[in-house]
C-alpha cells in the first residue's frame, strides 16, 4: 500500500475544487421502489421524506410493475442469479437470444445484440465497425457515451450543429473522399427533449451514401404511434442502419442495452465490440423482466398514450404558470432558469415542497443554459402533476421567475 499523504492531498484538493466550482454531486438515498411517489433521505442522515418523483427515466411506469416483478422472480427461479461468464465462454442463455429476437421485432431491424448497458453499446460499436478510412459525423448534442465511443475509434471525427441539416449536408459533401460516412444522432435529446429530424437525416444519408446511427434510449417504448421509437415517429422504420437503446429507462428501468440494426454491423459487434466480449451480459433476472416488458407494451399502447397525455398536460401547466420551457413533444420538459445557482436553489426548494427534481448546469448542459429537467411517467396520475405544479408555482414565485423570458431571466441572474 502506498497511498501516501501527497496522493491523498492531491485528490482532496481536486474534490475541494469541484465543490468550490459548485459542481459537487450528492446522492439522495431512496428508501422505496422506483415509482411516482418515493421516499427520500436527503441530505444523508436526515428524516425520510415522501416526494413526487418528476425526474426518473421511468417513462412507462414499468420499473416496479407487478407483472414485471413476477416475471423477474420467475426468471430468477428458472435461470438463476448470475452467469459468472462472458457471453462467449458460457454466459449465453436461451433467454438472452430470445430477448434479442424480441427486440429485433420490436425495433424493426435485422438483428440485435445485448450489451451490459447502452453506455457499453455506444462505447463498443464505433471501434468495432469503423476505422481510419471512415468518418463519423455526429450531432453536437449527442449523449456523452457516444462521445466516449467515438474517442475510442480511429475513424475521423466531425460534428454538425444541433439538428442543422444544412450544416450536416456540408459535412457530408466535405467527406465524400472517405470510404464510408456515418451520421450519428440521438433520437430524443436527453437534455432538451427535442427530436432528431430523422426523416431528413435519412434523406441526406441516401443522397450521400451514409449510414445512420441512432441512440434511441430516450424514445424506445413510447415515441411513435406504437412506441417503436423516433424512427417510427419520423416514418423511417427499417431505414436506420444502427439503433442503440437501453433497458434502463422505459423498458423496465433495470439495466442493459443493445445494438440493433443491419445484421453485418451487429455481427461485427458480436466479434469485436470490447464491452460485449469482456464483460458479463445482462443478468437472467433482468432478461426475464425485459421480456415481460416487451410483451406488455406490444399488447397495448395504453401506457405510451397515457404518457403522451401527461406530457401534454404538464407542458400546459408549466406554460400557464409562466415558466420558460423548451418546446417539444417528448416527456422530457426542461424548465429553463439559465443560472446554475438558481437551478440548484430551485431544486432544493422544490424538494422542501415535496417534489423531487434536479437542477442541471454546466458541464452537463452549456454554460448559461441551467435548468430543471422534468420527466413525465405513465405512472403519474393527474393529481401528482397538479400537486407538483403548485409546488413549482410557489418556488417560482419565491425566486421571481414566473412570467419571465430568457432575456429577463439572464438579466435577473446578472449575466
Amino acid at each position, binding site marked *: 500500500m502506498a497511498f501516501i499523504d501527497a496522493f491523498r492531498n492531491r485528490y482532496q484538493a481536486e474534490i475541494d475544487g469541484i465543490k468550490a466550482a459548485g459542481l459537487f454531486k450528492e446522492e439522495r438515498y431512496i428508501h422505496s421502489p422506483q415509482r411516482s411517489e418515493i421516499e427520500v433521505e436527503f441530505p444523508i442522515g436526515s428524516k425520510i421524506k415522501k416526494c413526487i418523483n418528476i425526474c426518473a427515466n421511468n417513462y412507462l411506469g414499468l420499473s416496479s410493475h407487478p407483472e414485471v416483478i413476477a416475471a423477474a422472480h420467475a426468471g430468477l427461479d428458472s435461470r438463476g442469479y448470475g452467469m459468472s461468464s462472458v457471453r462467449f465462454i458460457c454466459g449465453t442463455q436461451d433467454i438472452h437470444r430470445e430477448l434479442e429476437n424480441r427486440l429485433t421485432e420490436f425495433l424493426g431491424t435485422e438483428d440485435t445484440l445485448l450489451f451490459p448497458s447502452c453506455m457499453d453499446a455506444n462505447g463498443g460499436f464505433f471501434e468495432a465497425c469503423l476505422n481510419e478510412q471512415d468518418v463519423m459525423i*455526429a450531432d453536437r448534442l449527442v449523449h456523452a457515451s457516444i462521445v466516449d465511443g467515438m474517442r475510442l475509434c480511429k475513424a475521423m471525427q*466531425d460534428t454538425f450543429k444541433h439538428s442543422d441539416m444544412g450544416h450536416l449536408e456540408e459535412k457530408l459533401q466535405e467527406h465524400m473522399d472517405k470510404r464510408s460516412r456515418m451520421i450519428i444522432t440521438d433520437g430524443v435529446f436527453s437534455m432538451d427533449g427535442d427530436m432528431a429530424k430523422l426523416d431528413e437525416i435519412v434523406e441526406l444519408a441516401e443522397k450521400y451514401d451514409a449510414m445512420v446511427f441512432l441512440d434511441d434510449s430516450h424514445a424506445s417504448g413510447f415515441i411513435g404511434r406504437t412506441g417503436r421509437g423516433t424512427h417510427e415517429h419520423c416514418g423511417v422504420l427499417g431505414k436506420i442502419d444502427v439503433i442503440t437503446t437501453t433497458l434502463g429507462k422505459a423498458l423496465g428501468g433495470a439495466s442493459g442495452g443493445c445494438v440493433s440494426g443491419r445484421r453485418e454491423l451487429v455481427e461485427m459487434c458480436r466479434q469485436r465490440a470490447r464491452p460485449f466480449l469482456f464483460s458479463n451480459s445482462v443478468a437472467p433476472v433482468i432478461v426475464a423482466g425485459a421480456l415481460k416488458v416487451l410483451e406488455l407494451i406490444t399488447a397495448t399502447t395504453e401506457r405510451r398514450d397515457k404518457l403522451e397525455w401527461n406530457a401534454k398536460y404538464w407542458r400546459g401547466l408549466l406554460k400557464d404558470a409562466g415558466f420558460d420551457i423548451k418546446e417539444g413533444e417528448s416527456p422530457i420538459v426542461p424548465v429553463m432558469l439559465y443560472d446554475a445557482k438558481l437551478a440548484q436553489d430551485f431544486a432544493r426548494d422544490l424538494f422542501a415542497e415535496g417534489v423531487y427534481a434536479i437542477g442541471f448546469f454546466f458541464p452537463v448542459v452549456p454554460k448559461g443554459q441551467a435548468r430543471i429537467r422534468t420527466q413525465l411517467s405513465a405512472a403519474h396520475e393527474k393529481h401528482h402533476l397538479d400537486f407538483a405544479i403548485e409546488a413549482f408555482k410557489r418556488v417560482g414565485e419565491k425566486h421571481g421567475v414566473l412570467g419571465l423570458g430568457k432575456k429577463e431571466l439572464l438579466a435577473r441572474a446578472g449575466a
Partner: protein
Amino acid sequence: MDEITKLVRDYVIREYLEEGDEREITETTPLISGGIVDSFSMVSLKRFLEKKCNIQIPDASATPDAFDTVQKIVALVHKFQKAQTVAV
C-alpha cells in the same frame, strides 16, 4: 486585424455559434475552455486551417490549449507557415 485573424474568427463564428447566439468572439475569448468549441469540433478547425493556409499541423501540436483562443490559433498558423517555408 490581420487576414489570418479575420479568417479564423469568421470561421469560428460561422462554424461553432448557433443561430441567435450573440456571444462576442474576440482574439482572446476562450474557445475550448469556454465551451464554445468541443474537442471533436476542433478536428474540423484543424482541417480548415490546413486547407486554407496550406500548412500541415502535426496532431501533437493540435492541443486544446493551442486552439483555445483565436490569438493562439493564429500563432500556431504562423509557426507552421514559417516551418514550411524553412522546409522548402
